């Protein structure tokens, strides 16, 4: 068993780390205070190929593997969660869903521009009245000839006002025997007539990002934009979440690392009772916990990434990685504030932002409670995954890196 990262992985990590440190870190606090997203972030991530890091080259991507995607997310979130959210919704919910479930024609039309960053994508499943209970969504899609007419409201959608397209799940079979069989997923052009979007402010964290709502009023969507068959929307959405959830797990791991680094640096500098507080055992305990949680979170997401590379179903492992890393990141950030004392409570340091950012991840992309239920189902043998009609392609460096 080889636990080491390849030279390629290490170079990917360093490149993204340098980008985030040089181009985002210096001004992130300003944008966080403004509750707005810096306009250069999406174009830069697009231009540098980060948005398409894990798509085959022939679809406009960079041909790297799922482990690389995880490493990229870890590095991005170590600077700020909003950078990783971009990967979660654009690369994860939108891009990887099309890679898995899209037709060749859809991959050409949508995945290629997404991979290059020419189009920005997001995932729109959650509604004002439905989060964990996807089957209860109210948005509808009515078939009309070679189009569907979509109506409804999606809320808490990252990049709602910045994206060009959204992966939207709606109810298309109103009287289906099983509610979960009544859903279908579409690529919606957010510039279409009938689409309005808006920003949501006042969030506790992820303030330097873009979270909003999408309203659909008689939006006409061609049938060619339907991802998967009619009625497959639930499965498509669950696949989307397997992708997005993985990026959240990897990102939260980066947040643990950032909290750990901030705490170590501060503890070595700050003196109390005649010595650096790094010598005080209660401070040491916090730091030791963070260090261990970082290792655990990292191993969990890297294994999930490895399973994705093999083409092996990884819902369970991704769920464990997400639940563990997000909970641990909130604890780590909160403890980092404690290590910093009063300074931790001020936005002059980064740790209060880490904590506010960390809190959201326990809620979104499948709440941690849902993750626990998923894991219980697996552990108790209540859940057996049947093969999907469309599985995520196995990672093959030669195939994926061929132009």
């Amino acid at each position, binding site marked *: 068993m080889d636990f080491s990262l390849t030279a390629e992985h290490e170079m990917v990590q360093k490149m993204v780390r340098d980008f985030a440190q040089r181009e985002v870190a*210096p001004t992130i606090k300003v944008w966080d205070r403004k509750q707005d997203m810096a306009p250069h972030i999406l174009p830069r991530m697009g231009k540098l190929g980060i948005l398409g890091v894990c798509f085959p080259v022939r679809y406009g991507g960079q041909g790297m593997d799922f482990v690389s995607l995880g490493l990229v997310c870890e590095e991005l979130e170590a600077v700020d969660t909003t950078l990783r959210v971009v990967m979660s919704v654009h690369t994860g919910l939108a891009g990887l869903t099309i890679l898995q479930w899209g037709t060749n024609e859809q991959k050409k039309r949508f995945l290629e521009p997404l991979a290059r960053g020419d189009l920005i994508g997001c995932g729109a499943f959650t509604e004002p009245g439905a989060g964990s209970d996807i089957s209860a969504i109210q948005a509808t899609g009515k078939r009309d000839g070679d189009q569907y007419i979509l109506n409804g409201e999606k809320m808490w959608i990252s990049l709602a006002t910045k994206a060009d397209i959204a992966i939207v799940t709606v109810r298309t079979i109103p009287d289906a025997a099983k509610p979960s069989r009544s859903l279908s997923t579409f690529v919606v052009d957010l510039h279409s007539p009938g689409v309005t979007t808006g920003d949501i402010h006042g969030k506790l964290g992820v303030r330097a990002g873009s979270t909003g709502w999408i309203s659909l009023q008689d939006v006409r969507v061609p049938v060619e934009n339907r991802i998967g068959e009619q009625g497959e929307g639930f499965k498509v959405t669950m696949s989307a979440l397997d992708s997005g959830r993985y990026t959240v797990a990897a990102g939260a791991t980066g947040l643990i690392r950032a909290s750990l680094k901030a705490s170590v640096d501060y503890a070595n*500098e*700050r003196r109390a009772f005649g010595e650096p507080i790094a010598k005080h055992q209660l401070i040491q305990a916090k730091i030791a916990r963070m260090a261990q949680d970082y290792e655990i979170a990292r191993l969990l997401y890297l294994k999930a990434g490895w399973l994705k590379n093999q083409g092996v179903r990884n819902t369970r492992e991704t769920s464990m990685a997400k639940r563990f890393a997000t909970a641990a990141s909130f604890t780590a950030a909160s403890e980092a504030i404690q290590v910093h004392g009063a*300074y931790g409570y001020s936005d*002059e340091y980064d740790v209060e932002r880490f904590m506010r950012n960390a809190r959201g991840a326990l809620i979104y992309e499948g709440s941690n409670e849902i993750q626990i239920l998923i894991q219980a189902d697996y552990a108790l043998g209540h859940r057996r995954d049947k093969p999907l009609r469309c599985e995520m392609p196995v990672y093959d460096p030669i195939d994926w890196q061929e132009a």
Partner: protein
Amino acid sequence: MANKIFAYIDHFGGQVLPASWEAVGVARSLADQLGSGVTAVVLGHEVEGIANQSIEYGADQVLLGDDPELKDYRPELFAGTLSHLAAEAEVLILPTTSRTRELAGMVAVDLETGMAPDVISFEIDGDAILATRPIYAGKLLTKVVCREKRPQIITLRTRAFPKPEPESDRSGEVVRVEVVIGEVVTEVTGYKPSEAGVSLTDAAIIVSGGRGVSNNPKLTPPNEITDEKEQEIWRAQQGFALVRDLAETLGAAMGASRAAVDAGYIPYALQVGQTGKVVSPDLYVACGISGAIQHLAGMRTSKMIVAINRDSEAPIFKLARFGVAGDLFDIVPALTRALKERLGK
């Protein structure tokens, strides 16, 4: 020739760099310890006055290479002549400047000998100089020595050694020498003045501004400036104007930290730090500079450091002799006024 301790006199625009006299001072003290004499080397065009000055500062003999071809510094020409002259030397001492570092290196190749740049102190071990120089941006020091080969070549860090007082009644001999021209493949086509005023490395007092200088929340940019980045630059210019005022009042050079340079407020020529200039003034006033390792690497050998920063926990206070934890936008202009009063300006 008994005067085997050589000192190279670096000059520009007719002015000798003060560090050259420090080299002569070191040569003098070495010559006295080793029982030899000091030979100064002056290369250039119409530099006879500099040759005479060298004697006042301590040279027993000056080898003067005065030739129109040497009007502008060109490494191949200067190295050719200097190697020829210094072949007989025991020791060759140069200041460390943008010319002399490479010059010394090239002479070392010509004479197949060793060279230690940026020396801050040394001891004599027999007839060898055990020179101490900083490495890893001054985080460590190393003693280096050239046991066998001669001459031993060292360049001195500016202001690390005392500058001797000139004595107008010192006597010595100026010897005109042939300049080795050879094939000339480079041509100097002009100069541009420095964006820094007083040279940072020579300055006795430096006032530096960091990123903290640029974000005075009480300032509102004029309405015409709508672009965010331009507003930032405007704020920075206002802030650095305060730093400049203080520098001018003190007759000091102005410097900046890397953060200020990278953000585009200040030209790179003013950057103090590991990837900028290394300075060693008598007084270094750090305004809105937190004290990142890379910056400290550039100024930690300052004799006295004064730090003005909002954050009393900033690392710079660990090196400072005097500190003010406060709003530099109030403190710096107040300090300028207080100094003007006291200095009668």
